[in-house]
């Protein structure tokens, strides 16, 4: 992504009502970054799902633990960081929710949808410092095709659980 970024940062307590706060911020940022309604919805849903994971699975709804949300608006896209204070998870260990045997599972679709809606997705976990989800949405479709299309995993030290 291009080097110069505008940054929007917010820290939220681990309360379910703050999911809607995160969504609202996401809508504003997407509009500022120049995304259309469909991409803005996808970004909002990705933020919704990752913030819920951070509150429920990461921080176990402990209001003393926070969720940090950072949006970096680049000329050609948006990078979003969602960090919790939990124990981390391994996205590779999640069952495939569209496999025939899993279709009727009640849960397990959140990260799958985030991967579908965002162009890049990475999870970083280290002991004692929580988990950070980093996801990217490109604004220019030409850039997406040059980089191998949507749903590409970010390079780097992807996490284990």
């Amino acid at each position, binding site marked *: 992504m291009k080097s110069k970024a505008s940054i929007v940062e917010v820290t939220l307590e681990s309360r*379910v009502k703050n*999911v809607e706060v995160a969504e609202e911020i996401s809508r504003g940022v997407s509009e500022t970054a120049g995304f259309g309604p469909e991409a803005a*919805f996808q970004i909002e*849903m990705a933020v*919704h*799902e990752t913030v*819920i994971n951070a509150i*429920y699975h990461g921080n176990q709804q402990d209001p003393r633990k926070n969720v940090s949300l950072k949006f970096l608006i680049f000329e050609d896209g948006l990078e979003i960081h969602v960090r919790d204070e939990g124990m981390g998870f391994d996205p590779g260990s999640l069952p495939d*929710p*569209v496999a025939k045997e899993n*279709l*009727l*599972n*009640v*849960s397990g*679709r*959140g990260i*799958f*949808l985030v991967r*579908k809606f965002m162009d890049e997705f990475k999870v970083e976990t280290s002991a004692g410092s929580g988990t950070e989800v980093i996801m990217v949405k490109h604004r220019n479709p030409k850039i997406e095709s040059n980089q191998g299309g949507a749903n590409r995993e970010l390079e780097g030290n992807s996490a284990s659980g």
Partner: protein
Amino acid sequence: MSLKATVRQVDSVTVVDVSGRITLGEDCKQLREVIRGQLAKNHKNLLLNLADVTYIDSSGIGELVSAYTAISNQGGQLKLLNLTKKVHDLLQITKLYTVFDIHNDEATAISSFAAAS
């Protein structure tokens, strides 16, 4: 806007008009209670009208699956009516479009219950 569900009876089919959000927490809980309440009354043919659903998340999708399984296990049928584009797209991405019987017209949906029973 949080979830609102109103129930009406059309012939042998219980139609649940759902509006607002179906998301983790109170929304999902409320939908679950409405559906379980109908099952407790032995109303096993349910048509969920999702025309006014503004937002559904992965937990909301899971709640639809849970309702489908609960109703099927009791020998009933759950069908969906009037999906918005967003809900339609989400059910396609998650391949649940092949699981649910989905209709765009209420009269056709109602008559499909009779045809199946």
